[in-house]
């Protein structure tokens, strides 16, 4: 009995400790491995892991499926199950850094090749108080996604998407007259607040400034007035409200919607999910173009990881995601497999500056498989991107109400909505 118990303990400890001691390799667990259902992405990822291990024989990469899930993150961290290198959205780092739930990698960044060529505002997302806690791997700013097909059906020129909110309103009206929803907007699950923030930035404002709410002003009023007119005077936003991302993507995929605010990654999602066609969609810069919200993704390192794991993790991240030398081979792989190239999304994420960005754009045009001209207006947009407000999710939860108020209540007192939300956001920010 004692022997078998001992054997069990041995087996368990051997299974848990991995093969690091036996082989002398540094073992790192990583997530972000695409699920089996995304056959192509999974194949590319697994090929990359194999290639990396071949060229870095001292590192053993153990990939896990899954991305950032706030619902399980803390439980995984508490239970020692969080990967050494973990995926995050741009919404996550500020909170994780504040809670000390990511490793400080400042001293290692000087050894990351090409790190300085990554756009500063993206690196800033992972920095606080002069220290660095992660690296960005993809970025997208919000623009205006529209259905070229719905535009054509409504007699609108799909090569001339709206440039201002007034033009959005006009075109949404025309689409509505043709029996479809002109423009859709979120107002649920904190996504209404997220988009209200984007609207505010597009008008040159923001939702916070110097740690205080900054939307109860002319810009905020203009945003609500435009939304109210589109919803209630023009009836161009559809009857159904309290929408979120999945609802709006379904409307777009079903050909029932003209426009909505989105990042470029929405295009492949809609095309793949609804068996659509890239030529039917277009992407323009954010209306009014005085600013926009940037989002994206990146990786951080487990705060419990030791020095060796941090170094190995950063080596993997640089090789896989921040590697100008792999741009062309990657694009070729995608092209050979009939995958979309030409969108500002991986494998050509818009994260670089200077020569690397120019080279990437050149290669993207060379290997393009989608009509890049449909997305050129987005690429040419000069709207300056900025990141989310502090305590983003709590602020968004409050701003959801503002969107809901204006979209579900015809008689909503817009001034009161802004005033109430301002007091609530200030209460959240003061803590």
């Amino acid at each position, binding site marked *: 009995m004692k022997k078998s118990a001992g054997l069990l303990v041995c087996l368990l400890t051997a299974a848990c400790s991995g093969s690091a001691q036996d082989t002398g390799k540094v073992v790192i667990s990583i997530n972000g491995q695409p699920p089996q259902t995304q056959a192509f992405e999974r194949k590319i990822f697994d090929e990359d892991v194999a290639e990396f291990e071949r060229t870095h024989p001292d590192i053993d990469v153990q990939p896990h499926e899954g991305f950032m899930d706030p*619902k399980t993150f803390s439980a995984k961290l508490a239970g020692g199950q969080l990967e050494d290198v973990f995926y995050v959205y741009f919404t996550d780092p500020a909170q994780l850094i504040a809670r000390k*739930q990511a490793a400080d990698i400042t001293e290692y960044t000087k050894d990351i090749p090409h790190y300085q060529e990554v756009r500063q505002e993206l690196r800033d997302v992972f920095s606080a108080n002069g220290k660095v806690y992660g690296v960005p791997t993809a970025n997208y700013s919000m623009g205006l996604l529209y259905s070229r097909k719905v535009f054509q059906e409504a007699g609108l020129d799909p090569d001339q998407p709206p440039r201002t909110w007034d033009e959005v309103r006009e075109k949404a009206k025309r689409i509505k007259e043709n029996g479809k929803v002109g423009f859709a907007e979120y*107002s*649920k699950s904190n996504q209404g607040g997220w988009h209200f923030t984007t609207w505010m930035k597009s008008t040159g404002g923001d939702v916070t400034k110097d740690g205080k709410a900054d939307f109860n002003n002319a810009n905020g009023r203009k945003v609500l007035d435009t939304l109210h007119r589109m919803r209630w005077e023009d009836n161009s936003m559809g009857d*159904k409200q309290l929408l*979120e991302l999945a609802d709006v993507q379904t409307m777009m995929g079903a050909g029932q919607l003209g426009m909505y605010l989105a990042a470029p990654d929405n295009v492949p999602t809609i095309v793949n999910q609804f068996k659509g066609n890239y030529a039917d969609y277009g992407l323009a810069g954010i209306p009014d173009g005085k600013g926009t919200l940037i989002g994206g993704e990146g990786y951080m390192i487990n705060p419990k990881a030791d020095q060796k794991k941090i170094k190995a993790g950063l080596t993997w991240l640089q090789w896989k995601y921040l590697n100008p030398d792999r741009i062309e081979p990657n694009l070729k792989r995608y092209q050979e497999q009939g995958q979309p190239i030409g969108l500002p999304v991986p494998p050509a994420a818009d994260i670089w500056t200077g020569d690397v960005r120019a080279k990437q754009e050149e290669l993207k045009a060379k290997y393009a498989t989608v009509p890049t001209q449909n997305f050129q207006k987005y690429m040419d947009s000069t709207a300056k991107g900025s990141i989310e407000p502090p305590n983003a999710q709590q602020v968004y939860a409050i701003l959801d109400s503002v969107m809901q108020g204006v*979209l*579900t209540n015809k008689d909503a007192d817009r001034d009161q909505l802004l005033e109430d939300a301002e007091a609530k956001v200030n209460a959240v920010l003061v803590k």
Partner: protein
Amino acid sequence: MRRHLTAYGFLSGALVVFALFSWYPIVRGVTLSFQQVNFVTAADWVGWSNFERLVNDPQFAIAWRNTIAFTAIALVLGFGVPFVTAVVLNELRHAKTYFRLVVYLPVMLPPVVTALLWKWFYDPGPGLFNTVLRGLGLPEGTWLDSGRIALVSLVVVATWANMGSATLIYLAALQTIPGELYEAAELDGAGVLQRIRHVTIPQTKFVLLMLALLQVVATMQVFTEPFIMTGGGPEDSTITVLLLLYRYAFVYNDFGTASALSLMLFTVLGVFSALYLRVTSREH
């Protein structure tokens, strides 16, 4: 002694399971309420600051107000509708089994399916209710899109989904009432309403009270319907205590404040549970 040992042996399994999966999480929840944790470094004891944070949260009062309103409306609807249904079912002479099955059927649906089904019923465009109203030439409803009626719309869903169990319990209670009582009442000239008032209600008083208390405890923990159907909107009109708790724990990752809120809810529900225990023990 040996007999006792065997008994304790059987008891120990249940004790271990309870300790591990019920008592430990409860104690941990209480300690977490007074801590700030990041699951990396040691927890910080922060005194009452999690509670202060909650009280200063503008959505805290709204969530409690909505939860109490939801519970109150659910009590009226969830109490009256199943009772009346049970009385009607009890009077049926034909197709009894069929109607009992129909009433109980919604209980068998997973709550998420129920919520998604009703979300479609309430859809202001192609939804069932507005399509019917349009067909009849009546004004259409705003259902979940109006801050004024969204909460009531959710109560209707919760009542529809859960009334089956209550109806069956009422029905069982009704069937224990001796027929002679009704006969005597009838001989005395009592009408239907008088029979219900003077025979049915007094005879089922205990079951009514017990279910009312259980209903309060259950409906104060409402989560699925607002989470899936409205996300707490419009304008926070359907945000409930449990939805706020969920946000603190799984959106803001602030387990200390989430635990503080759960402790508050635990205390309130504890009062109703104590009442329930008192009522049931007195009856025994």
